[in-house]
């Protein structure tokens, strides 16, 4: 007997006992739905987080932050130096793995005014390196240049969120004068909006709305007009090869150790820990969801086995008749197995459908966050295949039992 015929007979059998089959399949449906959805959720979390990380510079970004001087060095505190531009220069010169540096000073934000409109913006003093280190892009005009810094130019690159608020839609922005803390600045560029068209994704909207307000002026201009000293708030770097991250961080540490007169009033920060912590979280999530999915698939499999054993018991005579007219053990085995697989396969298909519906609904609920589920074909196919494997595994025992029945005893069975 052919497999195709077996499949047709299997479907007929399922159709003949619709409710029973559905209840049997329920376990598989839920198991597959859980499995496929789990993939989508974990993947969504991962993708969202990864994008957030990218937009903060990704793994390639290193930063030097202020740090408590260790106890032993307290006595020499007064000879310590703050992070200054020369730190940047010596890192550039002495550490070959660093491909870009970005000295930054936080101007604490303030009111930005254009004609009658005003709004609050976080503004930073930066150099041209900021763009590359922080993985940003300019949508219109240009970014801060070295010439701007040397001249102490009063130019500003506005965040897209600020432009939206201060300017009419489609009104020209470049070349206009805006006032930041009552100092006039000429607009030379507009930043690309985050989360909108950036890498083709639309997620994390609320967080991005905040990031989209960031505006930039030349570093030296910021120091001269607003902070009044030459200290940097951050000194960030981009490395070319993340595999050498540790070595490069160490080299930077050594360089700064010298420029800071051997006082450890700074620390080197990487995004590695964030990445690792996140991998742990997604891993833990995946494992617990995976366990839930496996348990429901197991339950589904047991349900199939149970129903197959029952249906064999109902059909012992039929099996005897089939054997009497020439069915081989293998034919009976295939018949029962196909029925089990058809059950689990149908359950698997329905489960994939349920998962699509579920991730769809949750995707709508979570659409403005980082965690919106990502549906890909691969995991769906995988979950579906798992259901087929479950059918085969749990159908095997009933099928073998049916195939082993003695024809005479089966015929005699009442």
């Amino acid at each position, binding site marked *: 007997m052919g497999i195709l015929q077996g499949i047709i007979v299997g479907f007929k059998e399922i159709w003949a006992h619709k409710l029973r089959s559905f209840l049997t399949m329920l376990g598989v449906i839920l198991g597959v739905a859980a499995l496929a959805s789990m993939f989508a959720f974990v993947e969504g979390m991962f993708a969202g987080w990864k994008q957030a990380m990218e937009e903060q510079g990704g793994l390639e970004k290193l930063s030097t932050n202020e740090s408590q001087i260790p106890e032993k060095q307290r006595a020499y505190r007064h000879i310590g130096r703050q992070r200054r531009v020369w730190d940047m220069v010596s890192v550039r010169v002495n550490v070959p793995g660093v491909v870009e540096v970005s000295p930054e000073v936080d101007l604490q934000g303030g009111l930005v005014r254009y004609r009658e409109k005003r709004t609050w913006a976080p503004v930073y003093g930066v150099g041209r390196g900021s763009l590359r280190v922080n993985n940003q892009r300019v949508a219109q005009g240009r970014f801060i240049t070295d010439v701007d810094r040397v001249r102490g130019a009063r130019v500003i690159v506005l965040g897209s969120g600020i432009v939206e608020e201060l300017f009419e839609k489609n009104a020209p922005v470049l070349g206009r004068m805006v006032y930041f803390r009552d100092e006039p600045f000429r607009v030379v560029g507009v930043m690309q909006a985050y989360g909108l068209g950036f890498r083709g994704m639309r997620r994390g909207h609320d967080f991005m709305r905040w990031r989209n307000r960031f505006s930039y002026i030349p570093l030296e201009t910021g120091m001269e007009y607003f902070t009044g000293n030459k200290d940097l708030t951050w000194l960030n770097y981009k490395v070319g090869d993340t595999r050498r991250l540790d070595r490069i961080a160490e080299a930077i540490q050594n360089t700064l150790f010298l420029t800071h007169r051997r006082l450890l009033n700074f620390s080197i920060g990487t995004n590695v820990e964030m990445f690792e912590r996140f991998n742990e979280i997604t891993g833990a999530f995946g494992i617990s969801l995976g366990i839930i999915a496996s348990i429901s698939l197991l339950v589904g499999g047991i349900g199939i086995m149970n129903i197959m054993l029952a249906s064999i018991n109902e059909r012992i005579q*039929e099996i005897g008749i*089939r*054997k009497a007219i020439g069915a081989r*053990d293998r034919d009976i085995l295939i018949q029962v197995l196909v029925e089990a697989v058809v059950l689990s396969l149908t359950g698997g298909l329905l489960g994939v459908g349920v998962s699509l519906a579920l991730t769809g609904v949750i995707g709508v609920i979570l659409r403005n966050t980082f965690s919106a589920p990502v549906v890909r074909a691969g995991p769906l196919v995988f979950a579906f295949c798992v259901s087929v494997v479950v059918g085969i595994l749990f159908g095997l025992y009933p099928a073998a039992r049916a195939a082993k029945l003695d024809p005479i005893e089966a015929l005699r069975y009442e």
Partner: protein
Amino acid sequence: MRQVGECVACLEHVTKVYSTGSVAVTALEDVSVEIRAGEFIAITGPSGSGKSTMMHILGCLDRATSGRVILEGRDISEVTANERARIRNARVGFVFQAFNLLSRFTVQQNVELPLMYAGVGRRERWERARRMIEVVGLGDRADHLPQQLSGGQRQRAAIARALVNDPALIFADEPTGNLDTKTGGQILDLFSELHKQGRTIVIVTHDAEVAARATRRIALRDGRIIRDSGW
């Protein structure tokens, strides 16, 4: 069709012992018999005398505990389960007292089943099954389910199924046992007709009238042949 008188099946000193737990029941004891082509054999005997057992062993449905079983010149006592299934499928046909049709399939599908296991293609299967259904006189009932048929009609369908693979031997275990006298007579007429066409038939029966139609009568008692009219 083989030569009349040629040996189709034979048992040589066959013993069958059923051991259920501690008790062993000897269903057949040292039975030797030879069945020749073209015979119409009636096996008679009281209940429990081993008639069905003998038939099952001859028809490859069951295995002898000891002794040799030869079917069409070949010793089948030791062949594999798959080969036994093939022999049941192609070389023998069974007709049972309880009809044993698959209730979820139509007459046509029931008759096609042995051909399906033989690997015959769809079209040929349909045609051969339909021809056999006509032969047994059920042409107008081919697409009915067994429940929609009378006992006699069901038995005709079962006979068509037994015949469809053109077997060397047809075994019928009390084929008229569940039928009234008139219908039973019609079924016997059908067997006689098949016999006249040259088929070899073995019928197990309690009924003296049935036995009277046969060309040879074998009587069993307590697992032994007590009388054999010879051929």
